[in-house]
């Protein structure tokens, strides 16, 4: 049966398979689905060609992010059971189909098809694709799980960097009328299907009992790194899961606090100084933030393999709060200080995303870490609402009160410090998981629920 190719039993690596083939497999999925954050390049062309409002043109992206959270949360166990190749295939099919349905929708001037295609169908591809390589990477790199997941999750950040100029150039060539956008969507669907197929073909799970040459698990000696396994069902019953939920949610909220308003924020901060920031310079600032967000995913997550997961989150949350405090206190006295602090905060934002799968693996084992990660991503969805809501609501109310410049954002900065302090406290409260939640040591048939996934 053709679909047997997707089965977990067909993905067990032969002897001598290099584990360095696994990160490109993961990247081929994450670099593709990371396109989601470049949706904004389609907004204006869609608004003009289909007569949409700004709110309407954002709908496909918003639904896509909602579906990302839902499919990661509810599809995680399926991903563990069916294995990474199945998951990558589902992701590639849904994500590229989403573009093809959207192409049809635009060519027929039926915007609802774009919402259903990109948002609903493509959104499932986002969620399943996001968690698809996590468990497998951790199993191939038990000695460096932070680095391995950091590479994949950096890819998600890098996806928008590729898609944004590529999509824009394509619309420059084909035009921004319905025909041009439909052609652009069609090509996106085909190219992403081909690009992601590399991951589907290349992904392998390590054979039972495989470990890297010379690596001895017994050398790992930390209370917070367990040798036991916890199922996804049990994990959400532990305080550790919800403490990490708070950590991720508040760390992401704090990052979004800068990212959401980066452009207007830097211009407002320095508008009344001797060196105001131009529109072009502000766009450069936003780009630099994206770069550090992406690099932070790899650098900080890799560093967590050396210093430990709890310590690295102390850095993200503690030093992150300090950076916000410096911005709040120095306001517009130094452009360099403002930029450096914002860059550090964004690198911690990316690092927080990339390090969380390894933290979960440390606490809950590798058994269903992908499914647990999927459930934890609901914290991202919550932060996606919370961050912009806080910053926009406060900036609007301050503007109504007649304030301007840095005063528009000062209250938000202190709110972010409070959130980071709460996240810091939650991280301090993380202790090893109570053994009553551990899976029995030698339960027959447990492997079918994800041991090899």
């Amino acid at each position: 049966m053709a679909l047997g190719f997707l089965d977990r039993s067909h993905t067990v690596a032969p002897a001598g398979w290099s584990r360095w083939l696994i990160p490109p497999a993961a990247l081929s999925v994450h670099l593709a689905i990371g396109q989601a954050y470049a949706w904004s390049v389609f907004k204006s062309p869609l608004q003009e060609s289909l007569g949409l409002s700004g709110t309407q043109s954002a709908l496909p992206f918003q639904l896509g992010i909602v579906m990302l959270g839902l499919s990661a949360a509810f599809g995680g166990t399926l991903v563990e059971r069916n294995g990474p190749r199945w998951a990558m295939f589902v992701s590639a099919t849904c994500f590229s189909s989403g573009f093809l349905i959207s192409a049809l929708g635009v060519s027929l001037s039926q915007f609802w098809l774009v919402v259903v295609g990109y948002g609903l169908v493509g959104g499932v591809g986002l969620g399943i694709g996001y968690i698809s390589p996590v468990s497998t990477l951790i199993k191939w790199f038990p000695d460096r799980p932070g680095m391995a997941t950091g590479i994949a999750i950096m890819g998600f950040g890098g996806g928008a960097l590729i898609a944004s100029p590529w999509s824009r150039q394509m619309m420059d060539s084909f035009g921004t009328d319905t025909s041009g956008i439909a052609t652009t969507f069609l090509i996106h669907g085909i190219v992403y299907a081909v690009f992601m197929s590399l991951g589907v073909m290349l992904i392998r799970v390590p054979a039972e009992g495989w470990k890297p040459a010379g690596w001895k698990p017994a050398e790992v000696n930390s209370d917070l790194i367990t040798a036991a396994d916890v199922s996804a069902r049990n994990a959400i019953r532990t305080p550790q899961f919800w403490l990490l939920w708070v950590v991720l949610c508040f760390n992401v909220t704090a990052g979004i606090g800068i990212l959401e308003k980066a452009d207007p924020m830097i211009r407002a901060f320095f508008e009344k100084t001797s060196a105001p920031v131009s529109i072009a310079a502000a766009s450069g600032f936003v780009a630099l933030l994206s770069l550090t967000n992406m690099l932070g995913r790899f650098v900080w997550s890799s560093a967590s393999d050396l210093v430990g997961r709890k310590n690295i989150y102390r850095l993200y949350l503690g030093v992150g709060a300090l950076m916000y405090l410096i911005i709040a206190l120095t306001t517009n006295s130094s452009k360099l200080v403002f930029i450096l602090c914002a860059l550090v905060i964004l690198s911690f934002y990316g690092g927080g995303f990339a390090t969380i799968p390894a933290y979960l693996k440390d606490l809950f084992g590798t058994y269903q870490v992908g499914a647990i990660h999927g459930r934890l991503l609901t914290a991202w969805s919550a932060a996606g609402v919370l961050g912009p809501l806080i910053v926009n609501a406060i900036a609007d109310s301050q503007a109504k009160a007649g304030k301007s410049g840095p005063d528009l954002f000062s209250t938000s900065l202190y709110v972010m410090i409070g959130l980071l302090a709460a996240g810091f406290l939650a991280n301090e409260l993380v202790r090893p998981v109570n053994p009553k939640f551990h899976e029995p040591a030698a339960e027959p048939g447990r492997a079918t629920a994800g041991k090899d996934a």
Partner: protein
Amino acid sequence: MTDERPAPTGNRKPLLVAVWAWVGLPFAYGVYELVQTATKLFGG
């Protein structure tokens, strides 16, 4: 099963180069475009 033998990656080198290039080249393009935009920060 432990991979204790000398890593037999020699015969997989072309595959390794090809798959890293598959993902690395688009990524490099994205980073290049981003750096081009980021330099505007220092121009104004």
